[in-house]
């Protein structure tokens, strides 16, 4: 009955879903742009440089939120980068067989835990621990949010970096050893430089998850729309773009300048996260599993 070739049918289905996905992304971008026009017209540059967000007076300055997003993302990176790559080295280069498999699956499972669960643990344990550990008045701080995000993106960075290192042909390692390099030296001089593209991609994807994470940040950051004094004091309450959207989105509800300002925040976030994810995927694009070659050497 059907003379449609299977490949062609699959092509049509995949093509359609690709188009739908692209259309959705474009629609979201266009929507955010259109909705944020009023606030951009009203506030101009001070939408980005302004420090006061005062709904009753229709004043919308997003600088504290922009700062908060950058600060928590940077903190998360400082925490997750060394730990993530370090543990990826262990799972990829040191552990073997069953142990490796167990550790790796565990990490992949951690990466799938929803943000709200981390947030609840954050509220229950992290805020009070941070307060007591650093002798603070309260534990709902920019630092706490950064720490929580660091823990959250750690599994992502770790498993993707592990993939990147595993995808290096085994013969490279063998050559390293033939040249008289120790195991440690092989990792430093051969494995890490060889998989740097994949690792960078992993980190960028981790960062974009950190930037977009909402609920867990909202639960521990303190939600204060103010730049800290001095500016590097992350042990005070702050606000990120996502936590602001989480707090005010439902209330803004498609009306007036407040809604436009929230859409403007969303636009900034959307563009940054898209750019990071895109770059991350392009850089990672060079990484392809080459398991067959691994077998040639080890087998």
């Amino acid at each position: 009955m059907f003379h449609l070739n299977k490949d062609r049918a699959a092509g049509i289905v995949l093509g359609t879903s690709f188009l739908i996905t692209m259309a959705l992304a474009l629609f979201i971008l266009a929507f955010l742009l259109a909705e944020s026009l009023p606030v951009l017209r009203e506030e101009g540059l001070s939408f980005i440089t302004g420090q006061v967000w005062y709904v009753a007076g229709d004043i919308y300055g997003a600088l504290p939120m922009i700062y908060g997003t950058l600060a928590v993302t940077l903190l998360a990176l400082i925490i997750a980068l060394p730990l993530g790559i370090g543990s990826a080295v262990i799972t990829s280069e040191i552990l073997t067989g069953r142990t490796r498999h167990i550790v790796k699956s565990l990490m992949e499972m951690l990466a799938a835990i929803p943000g709200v669960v981390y947030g609840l643990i954050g509220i229950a344990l992290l805020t009070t621990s941070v307060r007591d550990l650093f002798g603070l008045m309260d534990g709902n701080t920019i630092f706490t949010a950064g720490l929580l995000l660091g823990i959250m993106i750690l599994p992502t960075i770790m498993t993707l970096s592990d993939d990147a290192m595993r995808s290096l042909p085994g013969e490279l390692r063998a050559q390293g050893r033939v040249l008289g390099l120790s195991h440690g030296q092989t990792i430093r001089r051969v494995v890490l430089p060889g998989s740097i593209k994949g690792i960078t991609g992993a980190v960028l994807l981790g960062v974009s998850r950190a930037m977009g994470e909402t609920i867990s940040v909202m639960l521990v950051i303190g939600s204060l729309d103010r730049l800290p004094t001095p500016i590097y004091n992350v042990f005070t309450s702050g606000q990120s773009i996502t936590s602001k959207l989480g707090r005010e989105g439902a209330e803004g509800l498609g009306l007036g300048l407040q809604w436009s300002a929230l859409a403007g925040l969303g636009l900034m976030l959307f563009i940054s996260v898209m750019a990071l994810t895109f770059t991350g995927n392009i850089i990672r694009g060079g990484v392809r599993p080459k398991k067959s070659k691994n077998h040639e050497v080890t087998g």
Partner: protein
Amino acid sequence: MILKRVYTFVTGFLLVTLLVMVPGGTAAAKRASIRVTGSTTVLPVAARAARSFMAAHPDVRITVNPGGSGMGVKSTGRGLADIGMVSREITDKERALFKDVDFNVMVFARDAVACVVSSEVYEGGVKRLTREEIKGIYSGTIKNWKEVGGPDRDIFVIDKEAHRGTRHVFMEYVFGEKTPAARGADLVSGANNEEQTKVSQSNSAIGMLSIAWINKDVRGMAIAENGKTIMPTKDNIINGSYPISRDLTFITNGPPQGVVKDFLDYIMSVQGRKIIKDSGYVPLK
């Protein structure tokens, strides 16, 4: 690669199915439904009333969602909720946003907003504050509890989201305006249970809460005014002496009709008044 393709396929498939199914799905719902949203102060009353109302009327489905008074007003104005829970007056700005909406306000109870502190502060000797002292704390000029007769500890000032009913009422008393900026704030909270948690987690916090949410960790301050000390109690709401009190309201777009009216009538009935009392508020006479 294959996984990725499968994933894309599944996503596409689900999206298409969703688009096809949504219009058909709604036709199946036969039960009358009431959407209630807004103030977390009003929420316990609405939730309890909804439960017993639904038990008596199995054909009615009521969903009650928190979000704050601001959300109650806007959801009702936009037609996203049938009943808005609002623990303050509707502001001029909100009325201007919804010029075409005829808000119908049903007052069902009286409540008071207390200035609350962590129990450690209360036991440390701060049991009453004047309006000027609270104003000083929220504007950042009073920074240590010892300045108001308490322990030598920095004050941890908890503010609330600007659209919250509790904040409007509290700030109107303290600053003389509903939505002032509180420069002394160290933290901003949202719903009542969040505020309650943050105050009780701290040993030096000050905040604002409906009196129904006061407990042994979160203590209500007496207000010192004209040489008198007035406790935030139900009795003082009833006799009108406590200065920070308010109406709790349900709002609708135009006069309530049908099941919405039945539900609101139920809240004003004898059973409803008992629910209001049990929730910690004072039902209207």
